């Protein structure tokens, strides 16, 4: 899933570097996990008045993904804040703080290594280049990535995430000179994290009024089923509109619908085969139903026995 506005920048990749085995390949895309993103936003909220932007270290992992043409994908799994100060004359990053914090994080999760750094706001300047230079030393021999999170609090700027890698520029490479090349960035999460996001989304509109108790499984299921049935209604409305000639059908949509819905309706063995299949389905359904009911009964039995047992323990001596 893309984050932030689409940019017209071309993502130029130097693929010939692959032939040199000793130099690590440059990252071709970046996956940001929600944890990292939310930590950055939280850090931004907690900045002092004098800070225009905040920076911090990104932790994560690098993989070779053969599916996307052998590019290196950098996964940003978490982030922590780093102290820094910027004035007109100089920039200072608390390197000691960065090191000790990394040690702490590394102890808990040894798989995560430094992959780069983040800053809020999307203006790249000389200081960015200097900080980038510092992080490049930290991540050597791999390239450091820079994730710029625009929080969208300033008028006229859209919230979004951009990611860059750097390359030196000029005849004599200097730390304060570099070219930031944009690379594609995506928000990525696992299924488990997804449900957490759902929870946040459901709670975000109602800011402070109702205490949102953890909802039950059934409520979640209900909303999912309602969602599916809404979708079916939409498709149905669309299809009937096309059939009635009110709207021109889009062949791409039609083919897609055929792919998705055609599977269940497929008639493999004529009428007889369908009949047998139907019967098998029915008996399978009823046996599964019995199993499930049994489970429910058993669960209730266990619970009531446990309750009775604990009550009996209270009246053992009387």
């Amino acid at each position, binding site marked *: 899933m*893309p984050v932030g506005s689409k940019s017209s920048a071309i993502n130029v990749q130097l693929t010939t570097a692959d032939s040199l085995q000793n130099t690590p390949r440059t990252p071709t895309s970046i996956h940001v996990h929600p944890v990292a993103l939310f930590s950055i936003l*939280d850090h931004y909220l*907690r900045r002092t008045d004098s800070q225009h932007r905040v920076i911090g270290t990104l932790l994560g992992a690098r993989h070779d993904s053969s599916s996307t043409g052998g590019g290196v994908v950098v996964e940003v799994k978490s982030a922590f804040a780093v102290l820094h100060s910027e004035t007109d004359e100089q920039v200072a990053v608390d390197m000691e703080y960065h090191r000790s914090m990394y040690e*702490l994080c590394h102890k808990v999760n040894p798989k995560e290594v430094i992959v780069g750094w983040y800053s809020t706001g999307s203006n790249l300047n000389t200081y960015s280049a200097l900080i980038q230079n510092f992080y490049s030393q930290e991540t050597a021999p791999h390239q450091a990535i820079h994730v710029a999170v625009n929080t969208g609090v300033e008028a006229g700027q859209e919230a979004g995430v951009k990611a860059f890698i750097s390359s030196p520029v000029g005849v004599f490479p200097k730390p304060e000179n570099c070219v930031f090349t944009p690379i594609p960035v995506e928000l990525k999460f696992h299924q488990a994290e997804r*449900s957490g996001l759902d929870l946040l989304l459901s709670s975000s509109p109602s800011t402070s009024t109702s205490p949102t108790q953890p909802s039950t499984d059934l409520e979640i299921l209900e909303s*999912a089923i309602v969602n599916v049935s809404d979708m079916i209604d939409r498709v149905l409305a669309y299809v009937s509109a096309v059939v009635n000639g009110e709207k021109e059908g889009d062949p791409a949509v039609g083919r897609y619908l055929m792919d998705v819905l055609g599977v269940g309706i497929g008639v493999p063995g004529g009428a007889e085969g369908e009949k047998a299949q139907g019967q098998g389905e029915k008996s399978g359904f009823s046996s599964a139903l019995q199993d499930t009911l049994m489970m429910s009964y058993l669960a209730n039995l266990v619970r009531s026995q446990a309750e009775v047992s604990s009550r009996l323990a209270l009246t053992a001596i009387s």
Partner: protein
Amino acid sequence: MAATSMAAALAASLPAPSAAPAAAQPTYEAIPASMAKVVDIEAEIPLNLVQLDGMVVTKIIKHAREAPATTAHGLLLGLDLDGVLEVSNSFPLPNHGNDDDGKSAKSTARHQAAMLRSLKEVQADDSVIGFYQAMTLGAFYHQSLLETQAVHQERLRHGGIVIVHDISQTARGNASFRAYRLTAAFRDAYKKSNFSTTSLINHGLTFSRILEEVPLKIRTNPLLSAFLGKLTESSTSVPTLGEKDELASELGPSFSALDLGTGGMTKNLERIVEALDAYRTEEGNVSYLTRQIARERAKAENYVAKRKEENQSRVAQGLAPLPEEDVSRMFKIPAEPSRLDSLLLLGQMDAFGKSLEGTASTGLVKMYAANAGTHV
């Protein structure tokens, strides 16, 4: 075990609750009148709500997913204000497995202190208000959890809270977070470290009365919700069905709740059987000990009765009675067994049963929903 060591480490590293606010108070400016009612230095306003920040939600989920089994635990940081405990940050604690106790306890304490110091430097909240623990299938009644919580009870303002996160339920599409604290009855029994049958009866303790649930609310700060809103905003670049664009969100709907598989059920059943077995063993131990106690007591009483009889006959014969000896020294009556373990096992069984019930009921709904589709 690592669990007890964690408790010890926490005990060593946490500041005494009264010391910090009381010492710091004079240096602060006077509390404004409007805030005077909601700021309580002595922690007198009882907690009635736990407010969990969106970042903490994702942090806990991530940690719980990556840590092996249910070993993920960490500390919660935040503040309490007018009865609402705001959890604004958290960090994971290293899991030492079964290292030797002292070393891991010390390193955990060091880790925690260093982390708190670091967080303070970047203006994050640095007051510990509780801890979180990952679990599967609703079973969080573990001695380690109670011990850690009991340590917090003495050290932290409001006694601290524990937030339990159910991995298995989250995988089914329902991110589950619950906040608990110890009940007064359990605290009292724990303080006396007396879980004998009489103590349980006096305190009226069953497994459902060990922990009490505190209402929990998820909060996303405005910046975060704005960002989330931006992410879920419709994007016109995705081709959809004509004018229905407004429904398409970049996040896309999630259907993990509709998974028809019942693989979790087998696991759940296994866990129930395991808990049952453990409970049986524990009950066996308890009844063996009870029999032992009864036997020893009978022996002692027998001896006393015999001695009395003898003395009576001696008095009748005009002899001086034999001295009444201290019976308790002669017969070692074992201490009454602690019922805490069986209590916790019952609690686990109940939790497993509950989650099985939930799975079964949603399973039924899903089966009928899937079946309805085939008959259209």
